């Protein structure tokens, strides 16, 4: 097996007295599309937020490639807490799509996409613009380049947010419930973009979702997480049709009855 691109090693995350991740072990191979499912409060989003450095860890080590994310290697080989400079460097490998889009409301669609490439990656303006237009074409929104986010539907905003994340050329793209905030009729267009990405790119994708059918379609592997640890994982066909753990069975019965 190739070296994993993401590796959680006995990761613990506590918020005050609440333990959200309880010694989580979890790996993702380069280019793999992994979906994380589980009841709310199980720590699914926390995994993504730790990777995006929005949430630190209480214990354990997270590896991205061969480097620890929340630590730095000291001269004597031991790990010490990461500096902001280290986090800044590590973040260049990751991108995130949020449940609530989080587009910058005071910038046009185009500027939303070019702002970080120009000011963080120091790409030339013309080049950033050209690439942004290419990404807008991919998500089917070229004619909306000069609009502001409030002029777009939720589905269109989320497609812009995907283009914005891709503009930073991440190796790993994190999707945190990307369709949960959308009206039902807009879910499809966003899923279509994510599906296309999954099929056509060797990007590593980590998706948290409640849309089981979608998870089944696009994932190489599905992980069921409950009470802060992975309880069962496997290829989508196996996990959805023949879950072995009782907790997985209960969860799937509940969500599939629902939908």
């Amino acid at each position, binding site marked *: 097996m190739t070296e994993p691109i993401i590796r959680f090693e006995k990761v613990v995350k506590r918020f005050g007295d609440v333990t959200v991740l309880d010694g989580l072990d979890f790996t993702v191979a380069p280019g793999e599309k992994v979906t994380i499912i589980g009841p709310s409060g199980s720590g699914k989003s926390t995994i993504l937020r730790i990777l995006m450095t929005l949430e630190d860890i209480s214990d354990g080590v997270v590896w991205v490639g061969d480097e620890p994310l929340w630590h730095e290697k000291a001269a004597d080989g031991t790990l010490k807490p990461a500096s902001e400079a280290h986090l800044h460097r590590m973040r260049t490998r990751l991108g995130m799509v949020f449940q609530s889009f989080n587009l910058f409301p005071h910038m046009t669609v185009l500027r939303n996409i070019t702002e970080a490439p120009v000011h963080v990656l120091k790409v030339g303006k013309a080049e950033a613009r050209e690439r942004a237009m290419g990404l807008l074409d991919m998500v089917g929104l070229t004619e909306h380049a000069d609009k502001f986010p409030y002029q777009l539907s939720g589905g269109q905003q989320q497609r812009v947010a995907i283009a*914005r994340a891709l503009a930073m050329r991440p190796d790993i793209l994190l999707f945190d419930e990307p369709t949960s905030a959308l009206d039902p009729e807009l879910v499809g267009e966003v899923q279509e973009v994510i599906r296309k990405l999954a099929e056509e790119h060797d990007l590593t994708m980590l998706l948290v979702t409640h849309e089981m059918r979608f998870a089944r379609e696009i994932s190489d592997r599905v992980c069921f997480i409950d009470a802060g640890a992975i309880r069962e994982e496997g290829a989508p066909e196996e996990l959805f049709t023949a879950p072995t753990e009782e907790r997985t069975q209960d969860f799937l019965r509940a969500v599939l009855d629902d939908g």
Partner: protein
Amino acid sequence: MLFGIEWDATNSWTLAVSIFPILLHGLWVTLQATVLGFFIAVVLGLVLAVLKAAPTRLVSWPTRLISEFLRDTPLLIQLFFLYYVLPEFGIVLPAFLTGAIALGVQYSAYLSEVYRAGIEAVPIGQHEAARALNFAPTRTFTHIILPQAIPRIVPAMGNYLVSISKDVPVLSVVTVLELLNVATIIGDRTFNYLVPLSMVGGLYLIMTLLAAQGVKRLDMALPKTGIPLK
């Protein structure tokens, strides 16, 4: 006679007409003190707001203490302090400048709270998106958070602008010839306080209504989603 202009105290009407240009001189000083004080407050208030939110308590706590002190002590004391104590340390400033600084410094403490509220009203998701896109914290603040915070705080800022103008008469105690000071001097010399003081009240009313109108327009002109970046 004041500012080279004579008044005609024959009756109240002739007095009113003849002192009007004199009062306008005072009004002009009041406006200047208001604008300069407000400008100082806007700039210093932002600095205080940023320092209060500093990640290290070594910075944020003293700033909070200073800000609390500025808000909880009377303007007059702060003004006297600047006017009478600073010269002991060799810093002698003109009365007008001392007054404008006193106004600006006290109001910077109020405005820092306005900034804080505006900044905190920007959704946390905006900070997270900026971090995920790897913006430096300074750029996140100046280009993502602040442009969204400012339209939210314009009405409150406008209220403080009006407040400052109403505090300018305090500067008369350090000899600044602002509107009220001019009016009382006229009163002292003509033994008619009713006319000049009534006119000061009227001028203040007009000034305040105009300022409120201006703020309202500015508030409506600013897009609610933030100041657009080209």
